[in-house]
């Protein structure tokens, strides 16, 4: 036997269980990654509300709802497409978004009922310190461009 000849004892730790644990941890973190947060801006500190409904990712039909996310910082600027927009630019942007949505619907062969408005939901993620005046201007701009469905976001508890 070579061990007895050389006097060396070969000690090889079994790494397989360690690898198993590491892979389980990786699986856990991969599953926990929330890709849907790409539209959410961490600069916006949402207010806290107790009785609002949890976020539903899909509509009643099972299809994911079309959403236009408006992140509004405490100064009332719209944070969209990596830009910080003042009210005038924000209103122009909302108009452009509405036009694109209408065109997409026309291309898809769907009709937008003017009475019901656009089927897209406007998600309002306002900072807790945003003043109503800026918020109202953006909401009015959305309404003027045919948006009717709104969602006001809040946190269920303090982070």
């Amino acid at each position, binding site marked *: 036997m070579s061990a007895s000849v050389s006097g060396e004892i070969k000690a090889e730790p079994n790494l397989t269980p360690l690898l198993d644990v590491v892979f389980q941890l990786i699986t856990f973190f991969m599953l926990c990654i929330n890709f849907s947060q790409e539209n959410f801006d961490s600069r916006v500190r949402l207010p806290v509300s107790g009785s609002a409904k949890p976020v539903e990712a899909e509509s009643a039909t099972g299809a994911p709802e079309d959403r236009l996310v408006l992140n509004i910082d405490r100064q009332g600027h719209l944070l969209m497409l990596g830009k910080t927009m003042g009210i005038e630019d924000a209103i122009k942007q909302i108009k452009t978004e509405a036009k694109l949505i209408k065109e997409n619907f026309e291309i898809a062969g769907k009709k937008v009922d003017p009475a019901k408005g656009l089927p897209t939901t406007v998600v309002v993620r306002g900072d*807790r310190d*945003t003043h109503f*005046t800026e*918020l109202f201007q953006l909401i009015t701009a959305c309404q003027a461009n045919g948006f009717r469905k*709104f969602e006001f976001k809040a946190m269920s508890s303090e982070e």
Partner: protein
Amino acid sequence: MKKSKEAEVEIQITPMLDMAFQLLTFFIMTYHPAPSEVQFGMNLLPAQPSINMNEPISTADASNSDVPVGLKTLPTTIHAAGGGDIARITLEANEIPDVKALDQELKKIAADIEKKELLYEQVLITVDPQLKYSELIKVIDVFTRNKLTKLSFAELTDAGA
């Protein structure tokens, strides 16, 4: 040494373990637990003509399609203090000091609506331009809790104040 035809194949686990640790480190560093967000969903229509909830429905107006018949409205005005917090709330003609008192009042109104003693088609919330979004959410929260969900918003002007 034994004369054996068996070839011993050892898979090197160490590089795989290194890679797994690197992946693990990446996920740990980028992991940010999703904050539990909630929402108030509503259909917001542009400003509609409004009439008082207690007014009887005018048949003359209803027969004439040219005259817009107003929606039976529960008018609410929120006045802001200097810091953007709620200073006082006016519900119809009643002055209410805070959100808690508003909740009590709305409970009574919601009960009347359920008993069909009141007909309501919208709640028009006229808000001080300086009111903070967090305070507005508190008000929306109270209305939603009392099942008064047909909300619409208007901005309080100097004339309205």
